[in-house]
């Protein structure tokens, strides 16, 4: 795994997130967090605990920009914690996990399943913690659905262009 490439990708995607996607104001329910695609596509070569620390750092950086200290961090930690288990369920061939996770290496449908579950969990956690009450549960679910779909569209679009 090429680390400079990986870090460069993180920087670009985070910038996109902060400068473009954080500015989206579609009916108040659309807040896609496309930066999770970096976490999702990272190869599973590092120890699980290190993965979670990376998730924590990425989430913390995003929190600083969103003024939501701890919220993205906890969601990203959860995402990185669940990642190998979800991936293990969806694809059986563990050999392929050493590479970067994308459309080429695991296939379109497994990628979609894997990303959909984790993106939904991440977004739900972010919105639920942001609301900090179950009173708005209906709104949170709609927000999660709409935003997750948009995040997935971006993720799959990137994959379709880059890893045909």
């Amino acid at each position, binding site marked *: 795994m090429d680390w400079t490439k990986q870090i460069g990708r993180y920087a670009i995607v985070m910038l996109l997130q902060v400068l473009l996607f954080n500015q989206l104001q579609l009916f108040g329910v659309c807040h896609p967090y496309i930066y999770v695609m970096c976490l999702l596509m990272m190869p599973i070569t590092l120890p699980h605990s290190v993965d979670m620390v990376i998730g*924590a750092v990425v*989430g*913390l950086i995003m*929190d*600083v920009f969103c003024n939501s*200290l*701890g919220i993205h*961090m906890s969601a990203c930690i959860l995402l990185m914690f669940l990642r190998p288990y979800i991936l293990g369920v969806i694809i059986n061939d563990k050999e392929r996990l050493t590479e970067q996770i994308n459309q080429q290496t695991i296939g379109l449908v497994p990628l979609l399943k894997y990303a959909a579950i984790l993106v939904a969990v991440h977004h739900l956690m972010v919105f639920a913690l942001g609301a900090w009450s179950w009173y708005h549960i209906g709104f949170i679910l709609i927000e999660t659905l709409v935003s997750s779909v948009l995040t997935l569209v971006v993720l799959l679009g990137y994959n379709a262009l880059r890893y045909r």
Partner: protein
Amino acid sequence: MQNLLKILLRYSNFLVFIVLEVAAFLLIGFNNPYPRSSVLSTANQVVAWQHEQVSEINGYFSLRHQNELLAEENAALRNQLSAIDSVQTGEALYYAAAKVVQMTTDEQHNYLTINRGSKDGIQRGQGVRNGDGVVGIVRTVGRNYSVVMPIINTHTNLSCRFAKNDYIGTLIWDGKNSRFAMLTDVAAHMVVNQGDTIITSGLSPVFPEGIPVGTVENSVLKEGDSYHTIRVRLHTDFKRLKYVEVIQNKHQNELEELNHGLD
């Protein structure tokens, strides 16, 4: 003891997860309510800079709206000014802000369309100006839109005067360049200097006196000519015209009736 270590090692990932999550939730707790750490929030220099840049960019998207507000405000201010002036001059002027929705500048007979019509009190023959100077005269009035003949139309015939000595001339357009017009009927004995300011004369009810028209770019007086050929650089840049104000003279109908009565 060995068993405990085994269990810890076996579940080490889960323990890391729990520790990290606890840290995250502690941060959420710290963050809520105030005071929050200034380094880990938008008070941070870098983050504040980013937000400033973003709001700067977003500002461009609201420029159109801001412009409309400013145009309205300009018209309102001019109305207040004309209320003060009317005490002295007896003129009763009202300004209505309008937006240019369509215009041509490269033809002989240019026209522009504004988004105000009869329902806003616009009438044929009213003058149109903007912040820089004279724009034109209303020719056709619809319910919501009006067509204005700008001074860059070869039909134009605008009575003007020099600001310095009140000498009167007629402004026409030669159909060539939207930045320049010609001032005619200025007799040869008049001394014309480059940079002289031309304003409206106030001799017609269309424009009140003193609206800026342009400045003298150059003036040619050939041997034997009895009139100057004066090129005037127009104050109004028609290629960039976006917002105008229609001048509504409350006495215009009366003045026109009087003039017609003379014919």
